[in-house]
Every structure is written in C-alpha cells, then in structure tokens.
C-alpha cells in the first residue's frame, strides 16, 4: 500500500490522493494528521536489525510497515491533539515528545517516501532563507542579497525575498524535472541542482522576475502547493512510487 500523509487543511495532499486513486494506483490510503492524533494505537519498534511500524487507526484500518510500499509525506507537525490535553506545564514537553516520535517513525517508513523527514523538518528540511540563498547561489540561481539584524522580528527572516509587486513563479522540482511553469533551461537545471543539494526529493522553488529580466530566487519549501504541477506531476509521482516501491 501507499500512504498519503497530510492534514485535512492541506488541499495539495488531498489533490494528490484523489489524483493517484483516479490513476488506478491501489491501494492508496489517505492518512490525515488529525486521524493519527486521535484514537490511533501505535507500535513502533527498532533494533539492530530493522524498524517496524504498526498504526491502528480509529476506523479500524491497520497500517503496517510490512505492507507499506511508499508514501507522500506532507506532515509538517503532529496534530496537537494530545499535547493540547496535557497540563499547562507539560504542553511543551508533550509536543516535543510527539515531534520526536513522528520523526522516528517517518524516517523508518519503507519504500519510496516523498519527502523523507529530516531532523529539521518532518516532510523535508525547512531551511532558513539565509541558508537557501547561499545554496541557491551555489546551484546557479540568481539571488538577492539577504539581510537580517537583531532589530528584525524573527518572522521577517522567513518571508519570501520577492519584492512587493514582482511577478512570481512557483515551481516544483521532482525526480530531476521541473513542474508548474516555463522557465529558461538554465533556471530549471539550477532548481533541480538546488533540490539535489538540499537532499530534498520534492522541492518548491519560488522565483520572481527581477528588473533585469532574470528569474531570481525568492524562497524554497519542502511542502509546495502541488496542484500547479497538474497531471504531469501526478504521472511522475505515480511512476516513481510504483517503480521504486517494493515488488
């Protein structure tokens, strides 16, 4: 079986699930973050020889690692259900425990996982724009100057680097291809290099059209809006999931 892991408020995750089903990929199971948080039973084992996972959802479905061939992973954080019920003094601890637990079982999923979690993001590496700018420049994308000071709010540092009013293009790189828009080949190759360098199978790259006419790096995310990729992206996903999964 293949899993689509996302939250109920993630239209891209739901779109991928429906798209894969319509393409005849089966069995594909939609697993919402909220379902994992409420009433599910967990068994996650590891030892020197391997990792095992068994999740029994409240509706009776059993997700067992021995049957999982791959997953589309768009979980950004555990649903706060349990942590919200914790005593005020334990809330932060409970959330840290859940985050740590999710990182472990997601890492242990067998087959093709798009994206695998990293220590700095459950659905891939969430890097700070300052680090993305360095990497994008190394990958060959034009980049703006990034500036941060102790007088800026921390949130400001995470915003897109596109100037107000600039034309924006949001691309998706996956499997060595670029989906979601037309850009010069040098730009699309640089986007693919950026994803590879970030070890992120599926990467959303936001570009803006600079005054000199060049598509310039604005931001990147391991959890992009997928619908812009349309049918070609779905076909590529289906191909990699089925070809890379266990026979």
């Amino acid at each position, binding site marked *: 079986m293949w899993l689509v892991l996302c939250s109920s408020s993630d239209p891209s995750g739901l779109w991928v699930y429906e798209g894969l089903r319509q393409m005849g990929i089966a069995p594909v199971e939609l697993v919402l973050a909220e379902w994992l948080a409420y009433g599910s039973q*967990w068994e996650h084992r590891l030892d020197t020889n391997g990792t095992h996972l068994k999740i029994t959802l409240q509706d009776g479905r059993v997700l067992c690692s021995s049957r999982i061939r791959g997953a589309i992973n768009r979980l950004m954080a555990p649903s706060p259900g349990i942590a919200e019920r914790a005593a005020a003094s334990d809330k932060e601890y409970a959330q840290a425990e859940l985050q740590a637990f999710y990182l472990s*079982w997601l890492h242990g999923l067998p087959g093709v996982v798009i994206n695998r979690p990293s220590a700095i993001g459950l659905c891939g*590496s969430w890097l700070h724009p300052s680090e993305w700018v360095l990497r994008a420049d190394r990958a060959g994308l034009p980049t703006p100057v990034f500036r941060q*000071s102790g007088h800026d709010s921390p949130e400001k*540092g995470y915003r897109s680097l596109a100037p107000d009013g600039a034309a924006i293009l949001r691309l998706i790189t996956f499997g060595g291809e670029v989906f979601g828009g037309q850009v010069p080949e040098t730009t699309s190759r640089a986007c693919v290099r950026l994803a590879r360098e970030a070890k992120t199978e599926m990467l959303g790259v936001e570009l803006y059209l600079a005054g000199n006419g060049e598509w310039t790096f604005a931001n990147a995310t391991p959890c992009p809006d997928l619908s812009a990729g349309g049918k070609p992206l779905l076909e590529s996903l289906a191909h990699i999931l089925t070809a890379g999964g266990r026979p």
Partner: protein
Amino acid sequence: MILVCGIPSETPLRMVISRLEEMGAPFVVFNQRHFANCEMRFEVNGQEVSGELRIGERAYNLQEFVGVYPRMMDDRSLPELSNEPPDSNLRNYCRSLHETLTRWMEIAPARVINRCAPMASNSSKPYQSQLIREHGFLIPEILITTNPELVRGFRARHGRVIYKSISAVRSIVQELTDEDEERLDRIRWCPTQFQQFVEGTNLRVHTIGNEVFATAVRSEATDYRYAARQSGEPAELREVTLSDELTEQCLRLAHALGLEFAGIDLKVTPDNEVYCFEVNPCPGYSYYEANTGQEISAAVARALVSGTGSKKEEVGALAHA
C-alpha cells in the same frame, strides 16, 4: 578571533574560556545575560557572509571569527526577562538577537562547535538510533507504543526494561517496575519509549575534531548521571583507551552526523559487544574532565583556534572498559 556564546559562569563554557586564556588566543564572550547591550546584523551576498556583532562598546567584523563555541541556554528563560510580559520589547529584542546570531552561525564560514542543524538529530532519540545503526553500531531494542499489553510483553521478554523521553527534553532514565506496570494504562494517551536494559560498562566517548577521549563509568544506577540519588553511591569514572577500530567508528559516526564535538554514549557488554545509545551534540563534558583529568576543554579550545580540522592523535590499542 574566537566567539564564545552562553553564560560564562556555566562550567563547560568557563573551562573553555580558561583554556583559551591559557593559550593566549584572542576571544570574545557573548554573554546572553548582557543581550540588551549587544547588536548584530549579517548579510548573504552570493557566497559571501558578512556583518557585525557589537558587544558593549566594541564592534566585531563577523568575518574575523574563525571559531565559534555556542553553548546557550533557552533565551526565553534568561533571568533578565523573568519580569517581562510575554510580548515586551525587551523580550522580543532578546529573541530576535538570538535568532540572528543562530542563523548566522548556521552559515558562518567559521568552525562552529556545533551548528544547530546537525545537533537536531538528537531531538529524537529513536530517530538518532536509526542513524547510529546505519554506522555499524548495535542499538538496544526499543518499543514506542500506546499499548500497555505490548509493554508487558516487552518486559517479559527482556526482563529488565527502562523508559525515558523520546525527545531531547532531559529525563531521568528509570527502570520499569511492577509498580509502574500498574499505571501503564496512562500510556494510551501518549506514545512512550521503552528500551531493553543492556548489561555492561558505560563508556562516554567525547570526540572533538579527530581527538577522542574515552571514559568508563562504573555505577549501579540505571542513569549514572544521578547515581548518588538512584543507588546511594556516586559513579566512578576512569580514563580508558579504545581500540583503533572503535575509535575510528566513533569518529566516523560523529563526522557523519556533522558534529565537531560529540559525546557518544556506549555500553560494552560482558561479551565485548558495543551498543550505542545516543550521541549528545552539546556534551556537558566538564563532569568527565573533573573526574578523570582528561583535557577535553583544551581540545575544544584547540579546535576553535585551528578554525579547520584538528590533528588526529594516536589513541591506544585495545577496546577495554
């Protein structure tokens, strides 16, 4: 120039500062408690990372720093903020300054011991165990579950089982007792981590660059850090020498995790099997140095001064705890 960040009276930080002084190395301390008197800005232009850190009256060009030793406490808990309302200007400035410093450290072309991203593998112990396993170490059997029956079965199979936090939030490792079994129903609310108890001798291996310091710990306690409380006797620590093979394995693991400085927790069984439990990315090494005389702080200081990799030192012959 070396940048040391944290609370200077904190023992591990104080010891590195002392070693830097003895070496005559130029360094500056960013004392978190004096944050209100500091400013920082940086920029990334292509591959160039530049900027300025002002501490008191003195400004430092960020490109001067060849080594950085951050050992910072959670800035939200600084005593200077204890009476500040949640959204006060001072509290917000403190957060923003620390965020700026941290972001710069992630990309600074200096030797940072350690950067945040590689340290994050320790934010999930079972995740890190899977990485450790990929580098050839044995790991203990672990069960994380919400099902009390599975825990009873796990205990019946292993005899002795411990439980501890999954995350990096510090917890005292405890052995699962009959009394604990009676309240196992509580785990239905939150997945909880249980681990096979492994008999043997605890080894803490500090790696810094290519230097290795191994310490054997003899204690009857489940968690030797709390030996006096748990067993009534303090732990006994002594320096030991690792085999070349185990030394290389530890260095490879630390390097693979991207850690310049690591505290690797091993256990050597009576059958001479080596289990790895955890890699601490911010080791409180001073406890080991104080009890054995191992010069770990000096190695940290040397690594900071060298800016790039430290020299590999010959370590001894046989793995023996």
